[in-house]
């Protein structure tokens, strides 16, 4: 049998238990060829499940061992890994949970997976030295209108419809998670890394708008322009400047 075919058949056994490869496994006591294959198949499923458990620790806590293992098995069966490092396996878990029964019926499950995955991305996103508040003051007031902002590679924003971060925080503090609850309106969360530590917080409508435009590369004047239907005209420059200063303090702005 050509090597390509042999590898396809053994891989198929790992992925779905297919037994094409069985006649090509040598008979050698004390183990049967079936038990020898089973060692690999079990190791495959448990290794990938373990990788998901380590990326989605809170989801595992919420679902419990059994349900988590079932969700992992269904995901593993649907999306065999194409990633180099096992650390990236799980990239599509949140999407999978959002559209697969029975998990789709509890949307907070997929949302929690989104939060946890975003945090894994924040953790080892690229490095860059942050701007300080003083660096911003290098720009003369009359040039602030043209100022654009570059964000730290770790910065992520998520729009969450449920009390997902409250669940995350309770579990992180070792407390019982609150019951799932849908918010009146979706809330934007900002996630970033500062001094090697992951952080996240919610942002209000004004900051969410400012962030979205600034992250899109809009200059300060245009960011202010977008706040006109949210703030009184005279408040805009001060409030927008205060937001930018707070971003600098959190370390999310870097040199452009």
């Amino acid at each position, binding site marked *: *049998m*050509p*090597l*390509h075919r*042999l*590898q*396809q058949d*053994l*891989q198929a056994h*790992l*992925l779905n238990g297919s037994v094409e490869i069985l*006649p*090509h*496994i*040598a008979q*050698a*006591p*004390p*183990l049967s*060829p079936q038990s*020898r*294959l089973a*060692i*690999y198949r079990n*190791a*495959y499923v448990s*290794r*990938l499940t373990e*990788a998901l458990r380590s990326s989605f620790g809170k989801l595992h806590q919420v679902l419990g061992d059994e349900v988590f293992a079932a969700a992992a098995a269904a995901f593993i069966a649907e999306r*065999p*890994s*194409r*990633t*180099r*490092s*096992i*650390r990236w*396996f799980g990239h599509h878990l949140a999407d999978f949970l959002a559209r697969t029964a029975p998990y789709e019926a509890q949307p907070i499950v997929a949302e929690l997976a989104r939060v946890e995955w975003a945090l894994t991305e924040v*953790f*080892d*996103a*690229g*490095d*860059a030295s942050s701007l300080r508040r003083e660096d911003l003051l290098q720009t003369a007031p009359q040039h602030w209108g043209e100022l654009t902002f570059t964000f730290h*590679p*770790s910065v992520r924003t998520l729009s969450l419809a449920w009390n997902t971060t409250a669940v995350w925080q309770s579990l992180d503090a070792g407390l019982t998670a609150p019951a799932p609850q849908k918010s009146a309106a979706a809330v934007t969360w900002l996630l970033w*890394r500062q001094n*090697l530590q992951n952080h996240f917080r919610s942002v209000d409508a004004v900051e969410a708008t400012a962030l979205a435009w600034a992250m899109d590369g809009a200059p300060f004047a245009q960011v202010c322009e977008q706040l006109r239907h949210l703030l009184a005209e005279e408040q805009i420059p001060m409030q927008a400047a205060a937001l930018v200063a707070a971003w600098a303090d959190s370390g999310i702005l870097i040199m452009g």
Partner: protein
Amino acid sequence: MNISGFGLGLRPDHYEAILSGSPAVDWFEAITENYLVPGGKPLHFLQRIRERFDLVLHGVSLSIGSVDPPDLTYLAGVRQLADRFEPAWISDHLCWTGVDGLNAHDLLPLPYTQEALTLVVDHVGRVQDALGRQILLENVSSYLTFTSSQMSEWEFLSEVAQRADCAILLDVNNVYVSSVNHGFDPLQYLRALPAARIRQIHLAGHSNNGDHLIDTHDAPIVTEVWNLYADAVALFGAIPTMIERDDNIPPLAELTAELDIARRISRAGLTKVA
């Protein structure tokens, strides 16, 4: 650059302990894939540890034996990592991890055939060209053999190393685990290897499932593996040796104490030979 003495596999659980103390470890082995990330803690700690210790890189996804061609993007990333951290060498496993673009994230066994030999030798050549250096290939633990195999694992490994001109990372625990699982003599395996090509030794614990052993790296090294290590020292001399621990990871001091056992065995073996 070269290294000598006794090392440990670098694990995130030990970052702080390594940097806050002066562990009796001559060098560390970092898992390549764990540091092929854009930034953050992994690269930060690797940088700080590299400032104080020698380093080797050990990959788990090269998949040298897959019929898929070597992944040049991956190799460029590994080379970049090596340029930054200057490891004494780069190793990976004599196995395949997936085919047709998939990754099973496991070290899967090859059939020991001429076809596989030709393919692996060709791939090693391409990998060594892409990395600009000689690589080390490690023998893996295995749980099955193929009916199509025409030679033993040790013949296959030796042939690969000689024909492709690569070095060998000898995992003594893997030899032992496979010898039990397949019923061969582990000493015969060691004796058949080209001694001059063995550049590094791995030691690790495994789990005993009664009629077979699994290479779990979750427990201390067993007596039989220490004995086989003594045989390896007698055959190959002072080869840089390290312990791999990937699960049930104990405090750093427990692993350095285990490393002292390796030091004692090595010293005793070298004295005997002399």
